[in-house]
């Protein structure tokens, strides 16, 4: 087997996420391609949270239903994942956390190991999950030294005792796993040269790093799952790469601060989720009339209102496209891979700055919380500031041929930079000149859209290439659809993935009109992207060919395969 899926499940507070991190780190440093994704409840204790790890020879970066190894930390975990347990699943459980005959409701009995006992021997039952992690590494025959190095790095600040005990727990677990391996539970996955030196990051980190690569030096945000990781990462590294970090008093403040920061020549990002973004819409509209650049990371979760705080959805495309009163132009990116998240966020800063418009990076919980290894990220495009040194008489809203007025920054040059949320004249002075100035300013603001359409749009990705039939998806569904299409290996079928969802590239219309059939997969109940295709590319995906998911769960590879099979591919 060259692609092993490992699932651990337990209550919030049982440390599943610590183990996930440790295991992903170990496998990756050992040279395996890894992927990890978690699903969790909106609570700090209790419930059932799970994490799935894929350890594979090839790069795999999507959820699978299949479980090759399953480690439930309590009986509730078994019930939580029971539909995924098959006769081939190796279930490993702690012998003291279940009745003598192990977890109930399994097709075949679990292998019981003394995780807790070993943890207590080391000194604390809190090490139980580290012992379990060690057991998993043992099943693969991974050298425990690799884990030791990680533990040293992660815990050295917390004292030598903690480091030593964690290492002992890992070793104890590794021994348990190795002896299972000797009994025939062997997992052989080929390592890949170079993987150990690759990057390992999740969607939020990719956004944060992409922002820094784009010259971001200001973040103002209010915590909201699943977007908070960006704020946390930038804050944690504010001394490594200088940046103003402000946990705003609310999202309204956050966006107003960000627009004001751009005014001063900074490069600002806000990071939020649906409800928080709702509060930002007036600020977005202000960016529109002020012709201010702005980068917005909008990490979706199911709504309306508080909805499902820790689950996933693609329900806020319409929101991103239409939020804010009045008419102005914007661009919406929806990265499908970690690399795209980095590249597009970096690019978002450049385009926002050049075109003086808001640019969205639209992600979701599934995307920002999943992580995997990638070879590297491209830092060769260093950001350039698109503002000028002003001189006396400078007019911020000078009417020009292409609608773009050179952007000045207070303090840089002798000119005065005057931004107004009122309708204004070329100087930024409030005006009610309805005959000339108002129409001129409206046209100027929409002119940006023409430049955007002509110079900055990107076509969708076709994978494996042009075909007769397409399965259309956008944003975070890239990896799962790509893997499903590869599995089906049907030469007439390709994925068409959109990482730029608004406005659409001019070629899309032609591409779609040449297609024989299209089916669509997205994570909302109303087919928001199907509507975009209709509106912007005059392409109709029939109701029956829209596969809409709105449960809050991401798609698995098997589910997409099954959908496509039913479609006849």
């Amino acid at each position: 087997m060259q692609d092993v899926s490992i699932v651990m499940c337990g209550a919030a507070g049982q440390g599943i996420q610590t183990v996930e991190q440790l295991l992903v780190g170990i496998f990756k440093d050992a040279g395996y391609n890894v992927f990890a994704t978690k699903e969790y409840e909106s609570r700090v204790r209790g419930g059932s949270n799970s994490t799935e790890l894929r350890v594979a020879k090839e790069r795999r970066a999507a959820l699978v239903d299949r479980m090759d190894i399953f480690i439930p930390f309590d009986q509730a975990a078994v019930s939580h994942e029971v539909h995924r347990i098959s006769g081939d699943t190796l279930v490993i459980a702690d012998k003291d956390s279940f009745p003598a005959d192990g977890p109930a409701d399994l097709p075949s009995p679990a292998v019981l190991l003394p995780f807790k006992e070993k943890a207590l021997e080391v000194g604390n039952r809190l090490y139980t999950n580290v012992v379990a992690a060690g057991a998993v590494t043992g099943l693969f025959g991974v050298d425990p030294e690799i884990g030791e190095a990680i533990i040293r790095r992660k815990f050295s600040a917390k004292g030598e005792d903690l480091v030593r005990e964690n290492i002992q727990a890992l070793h104890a677990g590794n021994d348990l796993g190795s002896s299972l391996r000797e009994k025939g539970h062997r997992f052989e996955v080929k390592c890949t040269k170079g993987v150990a030196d690759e990057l390992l990051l999740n969607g939020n980190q990719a956004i944060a790093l992409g922002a820094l690569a784009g010259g971001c030096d200001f973040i103002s945000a209010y915590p909201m799952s699943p977007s908070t990781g960006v704020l946390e990462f930038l804050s944690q590294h504010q001394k490594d790469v200088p940046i103003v970090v402000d946990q705003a008093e609310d999202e309204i403040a956050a966006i107003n601060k960000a627009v004001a920061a751009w005014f001063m020549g900074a490069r600002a990002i806000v990071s939020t989720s649906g409800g928080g973004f709702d509060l930002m819409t007036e600020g977005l509209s202000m960016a529109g009339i002020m012709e201010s650049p702005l980068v917005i990371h909008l990490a979706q979760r199911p709504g309306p209102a508080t909805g499902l705080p820790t689950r996933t959805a693609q329900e806020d495309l319409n929101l991103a496209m239409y939020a804010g009163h009045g008419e102005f132009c914007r661009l919406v990116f929806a990265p499908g891979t970690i690399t795209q998240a980095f590249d597009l966020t970096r690019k978002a800063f450049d385009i926002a700055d050049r075109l003086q418009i808001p640019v969205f990076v639209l992600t979701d919980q599934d995307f920002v919380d999943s992580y995997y290894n990638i070879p590297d990220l491209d830092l060769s495009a260093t950001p350039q500031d698109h503002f000028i040194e002003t001189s006396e008489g400078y007019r911020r809203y000078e009417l020009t041929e292409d609608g773009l007025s050179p952007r000045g920054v207070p303090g840089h040059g002798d000119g005065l930079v005057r931004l107004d949320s009122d309708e204004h004249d070329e100087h930024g002075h409030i005006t009610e000149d309805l005959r000339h100035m108002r129409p001129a300013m409206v046209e100027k603001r929409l002119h940006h859209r023409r430049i955007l359409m002509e110079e900055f749009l990107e076509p969708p990705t076709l994978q494996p290439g042009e075909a007769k039939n397409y399965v259309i998806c956008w944003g975070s569904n890239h990896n799962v659809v790509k893997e499903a299409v590869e599995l089906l290996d049907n030469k007439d079928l390709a994925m068409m993935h959109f990482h730029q969802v608004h406005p659409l590239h001019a070629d899309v219309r032609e591409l779609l009109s040449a297609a024989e059939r299209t089916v669509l997969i997205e994570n909302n109940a109303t087919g928001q992207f199907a509507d975009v295709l209709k509106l912007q590319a005059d392409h109709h995906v029939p109701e029956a060919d829209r596969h809409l998911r709105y449960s809050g769960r991401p798609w698995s590879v098997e589910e997409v395969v099954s959908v496509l099979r039913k479609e006849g591919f």
Partner: protein
Amino acid sequence: MSDQKIYDMPHAKAWCPGCGNYGIHRSLKEVLADLDIPPQRLVMVSGIGQAAKLPQYTKAHMFNGLHGRSLPAAMAIKACNPGMTVIVTSGDGCTYGEGGNHFLAQIQRNPDITNIVHNNMVYGLTKGQASPTSLKGMRTKVQTLGVMNEPFNPLAVAIAMGATFVARVYQGDREQTKEVFKAAIEHRGYALVDVFQECVAMNKVNTSQWYKDNTYRLEGHDPTDRTEAFRRASEEGRYPTGIFYREEGRPTFEDTLPLYHESKEPLYTRSMDVDRVRKLLDSVRSV
């Protein structure tokens, strides 16, 4: 000392004859000239309302943002370029009503900005509804039975929140207004000046005469005594004017930012340091 004319703009003003905004504007320009602050080093920030139009008529950089949102903008502006003088002028409705949360939160941060609130105890631009500072009983087209809410006391709130400079003036007392504006601008940290101001068109209760009769200058007050400041700020009926509280030396928001510990340069002069980003990238080669 420069000529206050350097701050003049050519446009006609949208204020009523006799409006207190004229006096505030004149006092402010005189103080700016006095302090020799060139328009190129000055950022005027406001929200929306009649008071919030003051930056439109003042030659300086301008960020005339949204109703209620002047303070977050001002805080960010200062954070991006601490070398600038940042002055916020907006109404009582804008600052204390729509922007109430920002008022509290910016006080907590202590950015080095001056917050001049034109307090006419009414919503002027929207034609006379009650504002948070309207006194009880005032009848308006909306408060037809008279204002029921307890009036908002900005000074007491600011002192309680730990503001480092808290003052009130009546704009008609030009001498004190200028003195306090000057001290507020010179103060390093967040400075609140609540300016009593008549709204000749929309507030028939709090007229010029009313302000003259119901204010008096704070005298013999020690502005470093916070408890006393709070007590004086809580006085009702006749309102003291002057500097209630002042604390020097508290770090400003900008002071707390690590990026200014390395260099004092404003953000617009800096460029992204590829090596530092690469180093950070390298740190995510493992968990």
